[in-house]
């Protein structure tokens, strides 16, 4: 369970709050879409939930783990074990093969070497990328890159997937594939928080939260 209380984020360079006193609860295994225009604070909210940045005030707890007071090392462990990030711009290492890109979280989490191959092959099969296992990430198409990024996010079996505009750089066919993939991930019991400004994509979620000027203005279940 993610509990967000009076969450506020003000950037040093900004004249107004990116998030302004947001209260929110997200249950385990829930598929939530956060929508809003550019600058509404949706990415900031995701970064805060993902412990990529710290709030100015307020509190976020994930399964009783307080992200606002945790140490840098604890936050790193949280990112590695509890969350899987999927970004619009993929954030793959272009010089690494698909195999090595997906292997990175396993190495960081200290998963025994013997399990790596099996886990990676299994996850690649799931995202339909088995045939590209030895290809460099830079050689993949946009859709393949995003599927590789999803495989990397899933390989450590985190309970929560954080997807920031995962279809932003994809054509409609690949977007459909990615959204179906996220849906199936959610159906397996993992929580998914999707940031999007695409209303079609948002409909895959069971709950849609709309943000404007750093505040929640609408919530549809």
């Amino acid at each position, binding site marked *: 369970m993610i509990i967000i209380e009076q969450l506020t984020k003000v950037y040093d360079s900004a004249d107004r709050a990116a998030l302004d006193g947001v209260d929110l609860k997200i249950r385990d295994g829930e598929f939530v879409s956060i929508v809003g225009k550019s600058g509404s604070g949706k990415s900031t909210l995701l*970064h805060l939930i*993902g412990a*990529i*940045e710290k709030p100015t005030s307020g509190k976020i707890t994930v399964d009783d783990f307080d992200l606002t007071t945790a140490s*840098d*090392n604890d936050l*790193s*462990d*949280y*990112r*590695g*074990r509890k969350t899987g*990030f999927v970004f619009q*711009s*993929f*954030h*793959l*290492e*272009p*010089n*690494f093969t698909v195999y*090595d890109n997906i292997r*990175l*979280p396993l*190495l*960081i*989490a*200290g998963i025994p*070497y013997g399990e790596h191959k099996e886990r990676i092959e299994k996850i690649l099969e799931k995202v339909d990328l088995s045939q590209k296992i030895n290809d460099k*990430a830079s050689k993949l198409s946009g859709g393949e*890159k995003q599927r590789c990024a999803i495989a*990397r996010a899933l390989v*450590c079996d985190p309970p929560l997937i954080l997807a920031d505009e995962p279809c932003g750089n994809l054509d409609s066919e690949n977007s459909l594939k990615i959204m179906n993939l996220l849906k199936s991930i959610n159906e397996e019991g993992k929580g998914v928080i999707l940031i999007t400004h695409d209303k079609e994509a948002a409909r895959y979620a069971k709950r849609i939260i709309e943000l404007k000027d750093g505040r929640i203005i609408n919530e549809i279940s």
Partner: protein
Amino acid sequence: MRFRELCWFAKKEFSTCPFLYAGLLLLLVFALSAIGMTVETFSRSVEAFYDYVNKIGNNQFVCDLYGLQLDDRELIEDVGFSEIYAVDDGWTDPLLYAGEKKLGDDFWEYVGLVYPRKGTDIRTYQGEGFNYTNDDDNVVWISEEVAEKYDLSVGDEIIQKIVKDDSEIKYTVIGLYHPKEYDPDIVFALDTYCFNMLEHGEFVPHHLVGTLTESRSYIGVRKTLRDRYIVVRCEYDEVFDFLAIADIVIYILSAVTAIFGVWMFNNALGIMIRRRMVYLLKLRMIGIRSGSVLKIFCCTTAATVVISFVISRVVVFAFTDYINGLIEKFYQIGITTSGSYKGFLVTLAAGAIVYLFGVFKLRSAIGNVNLSQALEGSRA
């Protein structure tokens, strides 16, 4: 992060950015080689000089202690001389008699003074040798020719007349010898003779000499003696003075090169970190701790420094041998590798300094990473 994972990441770093690390390596090889070559060529040449001096002096490096007399021995007994003895500084021409007959009337006699403890290479064929050390006895050695001419033998007396106070000193002949060319005809024990003359108000010019078994210790002994206001001289004083100055200059040069190396290497590390920032951020986002990131880059930096060190040693050996070969040929002195350890140690120290400053640079670069802000600019 465990060692195995650390090695995996480090290996990936090298294979992902081979040119970046090759540049770092090359830079460091140049700096360390420059330091190593400067110090090693110099120290090997210096060691060769010391060996040369030891060899020609048969491990008896002679230091003249001008101003010190026989009774000043205790002033210098603790400084490390293997031997201390006196040598005369002037012409000795005593008025000697064998009975009533004046020595030197018929032919010119050369009188020598020898310090008994030091001895001489003259060997006696009858009586006591020149290592006779009973200071209380007034003794004299005479050549076979003098013995025959004045009908003297062991146990006979030679009388020295002192004109100044109209007195005389009796010396007993205790040994006869066959003189070689330039050997004196009559030899007195220097200390006995000096003290006898002093009692009669005459001064025999002499000074002390100290010998060192190792010329390398001369600089230290010289400093100790100078601190005691004792003048010490040797045949190679100018060379030692030059070496002392050159030593300082060499180490200053090495320090400047090391500082330049640190500065260049740190700048290069900064460039490397900036180039790898996107990758670093990706790792941070998928859960790596900043300490582990630091470990990875410290590991790659350490490997770069170690490899650079090894290559620089090879370069130094090759070039130093070549340069020393030229010196050997020009100065005709045999240069050994006995000074190599200095070059090794200085290069090692320079490598360690470069690495430590590199770690500080990495710490500040990695520690200052703001994940969210950097995320905005990073696109794969």
